[in-house]
């Protein structure tokens, strides 16, 4: 009953077919089976946001999502954020310009979360950015620079 099942996943615009046990999370599928290691595993329990990806455009936690659950949905990871020309996303540029990281481990999750936060319209003030980015912890404490990076892009967009 825990035999592998064949899943067809739409990841970063590409169709990927994998055989996985039903209990495998989207996070483990990405990292261990699809060689997409940009999405990070921090707590593996929904408490840190390092594993943030987009499913049908909404930010979610890959560690609490079964791969089987997202068949037929559009999954975007940090690897899929770059434009068709391969250029980096404006939020990535802002993180570089604002030096919004130290060790970088939380950064892919922060960036995926920030892109969604801006798109949702939840980046109108520093207070709002802090509240709506609270699902992404940074053990290096780069928070002020992260808020600044999100503010830069949100401000430019509005």
């Amino acid at each position: 009953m825990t035999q592998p099942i064949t899943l067809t996943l739409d990841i970063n615009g590409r169709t990927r077919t994998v055989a996985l046990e039903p209990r495998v999370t989207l996070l483990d599928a990405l990292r261990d089976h699809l060689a997409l290691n940009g999405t990070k595993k921090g707590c593996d329990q929904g408490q840190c946001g390092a594993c943030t990806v987009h499913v049908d455009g909404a930010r979610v936690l890959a560690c609490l999502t079964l791969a089987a659950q997202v068949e037929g949905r559009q999954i975007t990871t940090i690897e899929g954020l770059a434009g068709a020309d391969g250029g980096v996303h404006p939020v990535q540029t802002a993180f570089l310009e604002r030096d919004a990281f130290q060790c970088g481990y939380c950064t892919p999750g922060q960036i995926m979360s920030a892109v969604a936060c801006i798109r949702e319209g939840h980046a109108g003030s520093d207070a709002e950015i802090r509240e709506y980015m609270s699902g992404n912890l940074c053990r290096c404490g780069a928070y002020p620079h992260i808020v600044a990076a999100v503010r830069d892009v949100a401000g430019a967009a509005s």
Partner: protein
Amino acid sequence: MRGFSYLRPGSPDEAREAARDPSAAFLAGGTTLLDLAKCGVAEPERVVDITHLSGLATITVGDDRITLGALATMSRVADEADIRTHCPAVAEALSQAASAQIRNMATIGGNLMQRTRCAYFRDPATFPACNKRAPGSGCAAIGGAVRNHAVLGVSESCIATYPGDLATALVAFDAVVHVGERRIAADDFFLLPGATPDREHPLEPGEMITAIAIPASPAARRSTYLKIRDRQSYEFAAASAAVGLELAADGRTIRDLRVALGGVATKPWRARGVEDALRGKIFEPETVKRASLAAMEGAVDHGANRFKIDLAPRVVARAILTLGGLA
């Protein structure tokens, strides 16, 4: 996480049938179920994914009630402008819960069913004794670290706090849980631990929450949710209050008041003592503060959680005074 089989039923009836066996579990957002499966607390043999079912995510706001489909996500409900108008406490409870990512995943039905965050409950490998997990095994929390354990509704078997925010608002405004044709008042949907803390809801295996209805009322329209916690965001309540207020035509006599507490009790806790003490009274700070103390009638602490007995009435008073424009 133990292995399980995965099923994606095509209809609610098929889903109920597939989950009738006690070893099966519905999977909605997965933010409680998969978390607990990783802790070794939930060990489903069959997971029945209900997120692909259609027709269960509808939100309707009518003149007499708000109806939330069980599969509506927390973020959708929180952001719905009509809900902010008709029952702000519900929207505020949801938008202060968990994180943006979790709110995008988690559903209203799953939210009601979330389990306690009691650290002993969540760690079976280290703490075998837990009456909620293993009936009759004892309670590792009593005599342990209990800062976030309940002071209301506790029993000798279990003192675990019900952690949810939404349900606190639901019991304040007499919401009704729809389980197919069955109707259960929100207050009756959550059971006191008593001698059977393992039994948290009156649902039988295979019964599926389909919707939640919140009756319209002037108190619901003028309502708020105040949540106090150890860090400013992405944290469960140390104490919270959902309150609704209706003043009489004179603008100062309390006609209706609803008060429910979160973070301090074993279930979402309707504080009728506070409501009764204030109904018909003149809205005035000292009266409100004094009456709020009634919220803690029957409270029992276990040491480190004593602060909740001081904190909760202040949260109630501040929430009521804010609604009346006096805080």
